[in-house]
């Protein structure tokens, strides 16, 4: 399936223009985060934990295969979608399920509790410990002159690094969007998890009333930062670029969802897909319809590999 090019249809389209592209891509990515949670739960319930640990190795390789097809493609649109799904698959299988195996089974860790309620499973206790690894990669991207990530570019400008780093060695045509989106998906997910886990860690934020303030502060930062990203995103016209920018936008906004759930403000239906079948079916349907709409939306020639 290939999108209609911008030259053919974009001019005529009254639909595929700002702010619709930004709004739909953000909604798609918000749905994707919820659905990814639900898919993980369904895999765990369908296979059982022990089988899931074994299957996750193979499922991760499916993600690599997907990535391989994206890396070969000249279509930026296809490469972006495939990079995103490959990133999501590998995060779920080789990161979350592997941590689950090590935490729950291999290391024999216990979940964190508040009273008689489990509040943090062992895989997330391990994940919280990866914050140093996350930060050293953050250092790499901060000093990488080829990065096109808006946040790192902003940091580089503030640190007056652009002159010292020199011009980027890559043009838009040189970039492989599958691997870029793959890494972006994984890195953004990791970053947002780490942020959440730090806020939920009583050893970091303490116990008592201070925790609530930390959580409200997090919701404020999440909505402000995510809202700022969203305000930029709704000006996007290229669907592939919008899709890539929607990944951090939705994930940053999602932090407020996670914290609100911890505060008891909302129910995370995606964590119990078997209980909320109707809700999750509608959720999945909406995700599929919107994704197909975006995939079929008019594209600029550069998005479908037609470089002049």
């Amino acid at each position, binding site marked *: 399936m290939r999108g209609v090019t911008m030259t053919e249809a974009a001019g005529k389209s009254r639909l595929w223009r700002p702010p619709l592209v930004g709004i739909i891509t953000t909604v798609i990515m918000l749905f994707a985060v919820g659905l990814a949670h639900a898919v993980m739960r369904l895999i765990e319930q369908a296979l059982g934990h022990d089988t899931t640990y074994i299957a996750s190795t193979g499922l991760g390789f499916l993600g690599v295969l997907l990535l391989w097809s994206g890396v070969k493609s000249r279509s930026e649109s296809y490469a972006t979608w495939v990079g995103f799904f490959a990133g999501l698959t590998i995060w779920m299988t080789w990161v979350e399920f592997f941590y689950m195996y090590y935490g729950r089974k*291999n290391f024999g*860790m*216990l979940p964190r509790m508040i009273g*008689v309620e489990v509040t943090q499973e*062992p895989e997330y206790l391990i994940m919280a410990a990866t914050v140093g690894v996350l930060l050293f990669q953050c250092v790499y991207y901060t000093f990488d002159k080829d990065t096109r990530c808006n946040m790192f570019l902003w940091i580089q400008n503030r640190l007056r690094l652009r002159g010292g780093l020199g011009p980027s060695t890559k043009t838009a045509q040189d970039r492989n969007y599958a691997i870029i989106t793959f890494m972006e998906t994984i890195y953004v997910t990791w970053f947002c998890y780490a942020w959440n886990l730090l806020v939920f860690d009583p050893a970091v934020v303490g116990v008592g009333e201070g925790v609530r303030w930390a959580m409200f502060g997090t919701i404020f930062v999440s909505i402000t930062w995510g809202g700022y990203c969203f305000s930029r995103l709704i000006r996007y016209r290229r669907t592939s670029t919008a899709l890539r920018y929607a990944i951090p936008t939705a994930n940053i906004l999602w932090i407020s969802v996670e914290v609100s759930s911890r505060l008891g403000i909302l129910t995370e239906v995606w964590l119990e897909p078997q209980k909320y079948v109707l809700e999750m079916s509608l959720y999945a349907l909406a995700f599929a319809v919107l994704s197909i709409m975006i995939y079929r939306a008019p594209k600029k020639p550069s998005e479908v590999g037609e470089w002049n």
Partner: protein
Amino acid sequence: MELKHRVCRRPTVVCGVALAGFVAAAMSSPSLAAPLALRPGMGGVPDLGAIRCETFNEMYPAGPNGLRQAILYWTEGYVYAQTGKTMDEFLASPGMDIWDFGTLTDHIVEFCKAQPEAPVPLAVKDLWTRMSPGSAGM
């Protein structure tokens, strides 16, 4: 000198001693002791003997092997209190070769699954009745 003399007047000393005694009594009073808590950030519960099987069952999927290890420690303490022997010494007796990490902890997991309202120590006591000399084993 005069000030020192004033402070040490008899009613002051009596009141001071009474106050110190009251504070000491209040601090040592069991009714005012804070509930036992783990250090912030740690996993698990502070006292496995204080929870019910429903909490055990809630924790189990999120940390099956850790919980088995924790309840094994608790059981080992129970066995030591009953016999003065370590678990290995106790299991060295004839007919005890059916017990290992799996079977010991399986018994407690199955007990809690069947009786979620029961306190966890009851599961250990039930295991003890199966293990103790003279019983028929599992």
